[in-house]
């Protein structure tokens, strides 16, 4: 599946991703305001499969995981950035939103059609037949993403523990 690239700069913070004024309500209302201060058309135009490409320290600030959840809710297939803020990075993986670090993102342009390949750790720019190399995810995080995030991952683990116990 490919989607459109939305390009952002450095230090995109959690108050832009999940504005405080909408934190009381559900994810639907919150996601409608995701990144509106940086790019007013983002929430309205993002489609399933689209990819966010950003600079350094993406997701800095609050621990509110709605920052990652809002992107997922809008259908974003993943975020590629030069670096991530630690809590956001963990939250994204926990919610099953792929987040990958890439050093050479200069070639990626806003509006490019692109696809994220987690197994090969690359971002393919479809129209230009270009592949941007990304840092491979550590094994434990790859497994968690493959399970769909922390909750399904834990469910699997608890189910396995229960089977072991009843098998004894």
């Amino acid at each position, binding site marked *: 599946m490919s989607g459109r690239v939305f390009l952002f700069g450095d*230090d995109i*913070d*959690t*108050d*832009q991703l999940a*504005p*405080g*004024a909408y*934190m*009381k*309500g559900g994810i639907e209302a919150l996601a409608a305001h995701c990144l509106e*201060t940086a790019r007013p058309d983002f929430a309205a135009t993002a489609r399933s499969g689209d990819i966010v490409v950003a600079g*350094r*320290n993406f997701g*800095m*600030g*609050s*621990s*509110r*995981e709605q920052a*990652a959840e809002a992107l997922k809710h809008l259908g974003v297939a993943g975020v590629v950035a030069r*670096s991530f*803020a*630690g*809590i956001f*990075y*963990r*939250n994204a993986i*926990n*919610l099953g939103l792929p987040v990958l670090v890439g050093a050479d993102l200069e070639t990626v342009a806003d509006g490019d059609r692109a696809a994220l390949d987690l197994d090969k750790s690359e971002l393919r720019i479809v129209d230009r037949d270009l592949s941007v190399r990304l840092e491979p995810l*550590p094994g*434990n995080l790859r497994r968690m993403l493959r399970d769909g*995030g*922390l*909750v399904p991952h*834990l*469910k699997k683990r*608890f189910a396995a523990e229960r089977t072991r116990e009843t098998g004894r």
Partner: protein
Amino acid sequence: MAQTLAQKIIARAAGRETVAPGEIVTAAVDLAMIHDSGGPRRVEPILRELGVGLFDADKVVLISDHFVPGDTDEGARILELTRQWARERKVAFHDGEGICHVVLPERGHLRPGMFVVGGDSHSPTGGAFGAYMFGVGATEMAGVLATGEIWLKVPETILIEWQNRLGPGVVAKDMMLALCGRLGMDGGRYQAVEYAGEAVMALSMQERMTLSNMAAELGAQAGLIAPDAKSAAWLAAHGGEAGDWRWLNTDPDAELLEHHVFDAAALEPQVAAPHSPANAGPVGAAPPTRIDVAYIGACTGAKYDDLKNAAAILKGRRLAAGVELMVAPSSRRDQERAAADGIMAVFEQAGARILPNACGICAGYGVDRLGEDVTCVSSTARNFRGRMGAASAKVWLGSPFTVAAAAVAGRIVDPREFLAGGGAA
């Protein structure tokens, strides 16, 4: 093998002799702190889905602060759900007693050497007491509550040493703004920051908390300060227990990622221009800036020591015409102590509005928010666009001294001009 303070705590929690930076380990959690926003309303549905209860209700502390005082319908509903959960799950609950990072140590929950997760990004505050404490999101917290453990990549340590002593009118907040300016919002690289040096150890515990708190603004995972007799005595006085803390230090030959040395004596009061703490510089170098609102609040900047510093400037003075000053003391205890010392009266006489002991405008979740085009100077930790209200609002960050000085001058000004009598704490 020589170990850093961070490594020693993590090794203990992971049941290991030693751990090496970069290793991914699973550690047992000594304490989990949650609040009303990322807590019950978010974790309970996940616990239900997993079909499990709390790993240990005695190791969970719940604090309401983000939606206090419940001045919106949804906020009130979230608070009610929070209270109900506390009763059902039988966890320690501090309701409306103040902001989580301040209440947690104040009520004796922290001990040096603990491995703690908090459902809030300023959780590194616990590092001031020699606890390895870091923030996580709600889903991850639900995982911790279900299993009692969490994975982490053993961090490298960035040692930040402040030599000599701070001058009058210069405080921990200024140290942190200067660091944000120097190192940037990702200067901490999600590693462990450790603060040391004469100026750090000379700070009061609440001032040390400000250093650890704003490790979050450096993008560090934790912000540690090695325990000493001062932190042990403070904990003992607050119903906590220091236990054996003498092993909690970084070995002299432990490997560091970076070692920065700064001169505290040369530090001037700092302000950070909108919309990032990294836009910091000496207050004297700031462009002429008139202000509409002054805010003394948050876990970062409204503890007892912060209130006392602000009052040293406000005493006998009135707010500048057209300026609104709001004060939201970090905790009820700090407010009571400040009231007993006449500090709250100083705020009232100056014309300030006192807000509840909660996150208030810092979180921007409730009714009190900054209006369109307002210029605010604030003792909080973050000035991201739109955080405290309208996206058109401009927030400058400064110490409580600097916020108080701006409130009486009506513009951003060096607070030392108001401290001729040497009123600094």
